[in-house]
C-alpha cells in the first residue's frame, strides 16, 4: 500500500487537532471526518488492516480539496494531502474508485479534458490554428479550464504575447496535463498523458514553457520531474512570472486605467506550493490607477476555492460553491471592487458564487486591458 510511505503523517494526524481550523473542507462541512485528523484515523485503520476501504471511507478521501493549508499550518513534519493522494492511488488499484471518479477518468482519457468536451472545441474562442507553429521560443500551454471555461483569459494572454512581440506557439494537440487523473488516484494513466504532452512540448524546442493555469504550472514544475519527465533547457513559468519579466524588461508597458481597488487571491499551487507571491503584486503595482488592498488571509494562508483538487468541483459542487462564497465574503471585507486571481479555475468557481459590487477577474485579463486597451479617459 502506498499509504505505508506516509505512516508518520497518518500516525501523527490521527490524534492531532491543531490544524482543523484551517482545513477548507472541514470548516465548510463541519464534519470531523473531513479534518486531517479524521482522515488520519481512517487511514490508520486501513494501514493496520483494521478496516477496508468501503464506499463511505472512499467518499471521505475524495472530499478533501488538497488545499494544503493543513500542511502549511503544521509545525510537525506532516503532509496530509500526500497521504490522501496515496490513499486514492491505493483504492484505485483495488478497483474501489467511486463511479463519479471513474467517469471523470474516462472523459479525460477520451477527450483530453475533464469536462468531456470535444478536443476540436478547445480552440473555439482563441483562434488556435492561426497560432500553431512547429517551433517557437515560447510554448503557451493554455490548459483545460482556460480553454473551455475561460477562453477570454487565453485570448488576453495571446494579446499580451503579441504586444510583447513574443515568438510563441500554442500546442496543436494540446490536452490535459494528466494532473486531474493523478489527483484522482490514476497514476499510471496520468503518467501516460504526461509523457505524450511532454513530448509535444519538447518537439517545439522552446526556451520557455508558460501557462496561465497554476495546476498545469505545478504539473510541469513538480509532477513531471517526479515522473522522470524532465524539461531540460526549458524554463517553466506561470503567466504571472512571465508578465512580471516582460514588464521588468519594458516589453509591455501598462497604461493608466480607470481607478479600481483590487484584492488578490493567492492559490494553492502558485502560492503555497511554489511561493509565487510577489510577482502578481508587483504586476498590479505597476498598473497606474489600480490600488491593492490585501485580505486578512493572504499568501501561504490564503483561503482556497478548492481549485487545488483539480476536478473537486465536479465531485462536490455544493462544497466548492461554499468555499468560493467564503472567499468572496473575505474579499468583500477589504472594500475592493475587483477580486483578482491568477487561476482560471478559481475564477470560474468565484463567478459561480457571484456577488454584486465585486467583479472577479484574472490578472492576465487585467494586464491585457492595461497593455492593449485604450487609454483611460482623462
Amino acid at each position, binding site marked *: 500500500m502506498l499509504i505505508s510511505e506516509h505512516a508518520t503523517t497518518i500516525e*501523527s*494526524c*490521527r*490524534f*492531532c*487537532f*491543531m*490544524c*482543523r*481550523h*484551517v482545513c477548507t473542507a472541514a*470548516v465548510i462541512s*463541519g*464534519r*470531523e*471526518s473531513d*479534518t486531517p*485528523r*479524521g482522515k488520519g*484515523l*481512517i487511514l*490508520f*485503520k486501513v494501514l*493496520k*488492516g*483494521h*478496516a477496508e476501504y*468501503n464506499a*463511505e*471511507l472512499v*467518499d*471521505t478521501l475524495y472530499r478533501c480539496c488538497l488545499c494544503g493549508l493543513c500542511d502549511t*499550518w*503544521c*509545525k*510537525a*513534519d*506532516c503532509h496530509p494531502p500526500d497521504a490522501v493522494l496515496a490513499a486514492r492511488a491505493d483504492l484505485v488499484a483495488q478497483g474501489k474508485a467511486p463511479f463519479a471518479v471513474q467517469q471523470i477518468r474516462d472523459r479525460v482519457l477520451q477527450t483530453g479534458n475533464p469536462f468531456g468536451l470535444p478536443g476540436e472545441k478547445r480552440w473555439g474562442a482563441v483562434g488556435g490554428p492561426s497560432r500553431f507553429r512547429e517551433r517557437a521560443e515560447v510554448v503557451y500551454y493554455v490548459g483545460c479550464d482556460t480553454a473551455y471555461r475561460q477562453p477570454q483569459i487565453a485570448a488576453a494572454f495571446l494579446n499580451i504575447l503579441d504586444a510583447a512581440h513574443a515568438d510563441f506557439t500554442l500546442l496543436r494537440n494540446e490536452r490535459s496535463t494528466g494532473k486531474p487523473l493523478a489527483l484522482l488516484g490514476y497514476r499510471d494513466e496520468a503518467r501516460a498523458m504526461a509523457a505524450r504532452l511532454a513530448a509535444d512540448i519538447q518537439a517545439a524546442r522552446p526556451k520557455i514553457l508558460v501557462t496561465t493555469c497554476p495546476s498545469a504550472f505545478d504539473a510541469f514544475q513538480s509532477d513531471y520531474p517526479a515522473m522522470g519527465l524532465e524539461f531540460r533547457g526549458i524554463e517553466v513559468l506561470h503567466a504571472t512570472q512571465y508578465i512580471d519579466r516582460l514588464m521588468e524588461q519594458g516589453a509591455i508597458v501598462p497604461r493608466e486605467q480607470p481607478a479600481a481597488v483590487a484584492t488578490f487571491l493567492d492559490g494553492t499551487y502558485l502560492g503555497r506550493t511554489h511561493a509565487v507571491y510577489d510577482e502578481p503584486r508587483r504586476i498590479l503595482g505597476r498598473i497606474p490607477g489600480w490600488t491593492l488592498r490585501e485580505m*486578512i488571509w493572504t499568501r501561504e494562508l490564503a483561503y482556497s476555492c478548492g481549485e487545488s483538487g483539480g476536478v473537486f468541483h465536479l465531485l462536490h459542487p*455544493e462544497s466548492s460553491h461554499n468555499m468560493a462564497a467564503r472567499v468572496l465574503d473575505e474579499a468583500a*471585507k477589504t472594500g475592493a471592487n475587483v477580486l483578482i486571481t491568477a487561476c482560471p479555475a478559481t475564477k470560474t468557481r468565484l463567478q459561480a458564487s457571484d456577488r454584486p459590487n465585486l467583479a472577479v477577474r484574472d490578472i492576465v485579463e487585467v494586464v491585457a486591458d492595461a497593455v492593449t486597451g485604450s487609454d483611460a479617459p482623462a
Partner: protein
Amino acid sequence: MPLRTDSYLNEFLYTELADVVGSENVSTSASDKIAYSCDYYWIPELWIDRGRRGPEPDMVVHPRSVEEVSRICRIAGKHGIPLTTWGGGSGSQGGALPIHGGIVLDTKKLHRILEIDKTSLTVTAETGIIMQHLEWALAQEGVGTMHEPASISCATLGGFLGHRGTGVLSTKYGKIEDMVLALEVVLADGTVINTLPVPRHASGPDLTQLFLGSEGTFGVMTKATLKIHPLPEVRRFHAFVFPDLHTGLEAGRQLMARRLRPCVIRLYDEAETRRLIRRVLGIDKDGAYLVFGFDGDRDSVALELSKALAICRALPHEDLGPNLGQDWWDHRYDFFFPNHMFHLPQAFGTLDTVATFANIENVYCAMKRVVEEQFPMARYIGHFSHWYEWGCMLYARFIIDDPPEDAHEAAQLYNRVWDACLRAAMQHGGLLNEHHGIGLKLGRLMRELYGPAYGVLENIKQTIDPGNIMNPGKMGFPAFR
C-alpha cells in the same frame, strides 16, 4: 435501550432528523462513526491504536440554528435516545464520546458571530464557532476575548463553556467562566432558555454558572455573550530560572500577593524545564523556568513589569531577560504539535488541579510521591500556568513510556495512576480538575470530591433531564438505561 444501527427504527429516526436539518446534515457514514468515536482522551486513542472500535454514534447531526437544536432534543427525548453534544471534540476527558451510541449533535454549524458591541465591549456568538475563528474576527475589530488556550485552533466556544476552559492569559483575563455574561441553552425537552443578560445580580442563584462545566449533561448551550477587551498596546514578557521549584512558586505567589496584574505567569518544574523548555525553546538551564508577561498601555506595563522584576530579583535567580520570555509566547502552541507532544505508545495524562498557595506545593509533592513510589514505570512533570489571588493551577503530567501492549492492562494501569494521584491531590487540598473537565475519565471520583454535595448535582441532573438523554454517563451521572 440505545438504538442498534441495523434496526429499522433507525430509518425513522433518520427521517425525522433529516426533516429538521436536511439530509446533508445528518450522517450515518462509517467515516464519521470513526471520527466521532475518539476525542483527545488517551483511552479512545489506545482503543484505536490497538485496533478496537471506539464508542460510535448511530447518527451525527449538524444543526444550523437554535430552533433545529430544540427540535433535535425533542426527537431524542421522544425516542429516548442519548444525545451527546460535540463541539471540537478536542477534550481530553472523553466528555464528548457517544459512549451509549445514539445521536451526536455537532455544533460547528452554529458558528455565527451575532453582535460585537463596542460600547459595552461584549460579543455574542453561537457556541459552535471555533475559538480561533472568533478571535481572528474580533482582532479585525481591534478587540479580543483574550481566551488563548493551546486548543484555540480546535475547540469551540461551547467546548470551553462546557468544561470551564482557560487560556494562557487567564491570570489577568480570567477563565471562560469569568468572561461569560449570559447563555442561551436548549434543555432536554427542547425548551430554549436564556440566562439573565448580565451577571453580578442579586436576583437569585446564577443560572449561567450552573450550566458552565456541565459538559452537555444539563442541556445544549447554543449562544453566549462574552466580555471582550481592546487589543493591548504592548505585551511584554520576561523569563527567569530559579534554582528550584519552591523558589519559583514563591516568586509567583509574591507577584499575585502584591496584586500585580500579570497576563501570564508560567512556572515549569525542574523536570519540564530540563525536558520541554530545552526541546521546544532551546533554553538549556537547570532549575525552574518562569515566564511572566504584562499587557496593556505602554506606561502601565512598564511600571508593573518593573515591580515584578524587583520581586523576582530579590530571590535567588538567573535573569534570562525579555527575549527568552518572548520566545515562550511565540512558541506557546508548538508544545502541542505531534513532534513535541507525548503520544502513543506512551501513556500520559494531565493531572491538572488547583489549590491555594498554602497547599499547592504539597499537592504537587504528594502526586509526585505517588507516581515515584507506586508507579516506578512512570515519570512525573508539571508546570503552574494559571494564577489567582489565592492560589494557582498545577498542570502535572505522568508519562509511561512503555505501557502494557494489552489494551485492557494498559487502561487499568492508566486508571490506577489517575485514581492514586488525584486522591493524593484531594487529600492535600487539590481538586479533581481545573480546566479540562470531568467527562468519562474522572466521573467515578466526583462523589469523593464533593461528598454529600454531589447529591445536589445529582438532583439537578434528575430534574433538568429526567429521561437522562443528555450526554449520559459523564461527570459521574448515571449511565444510559
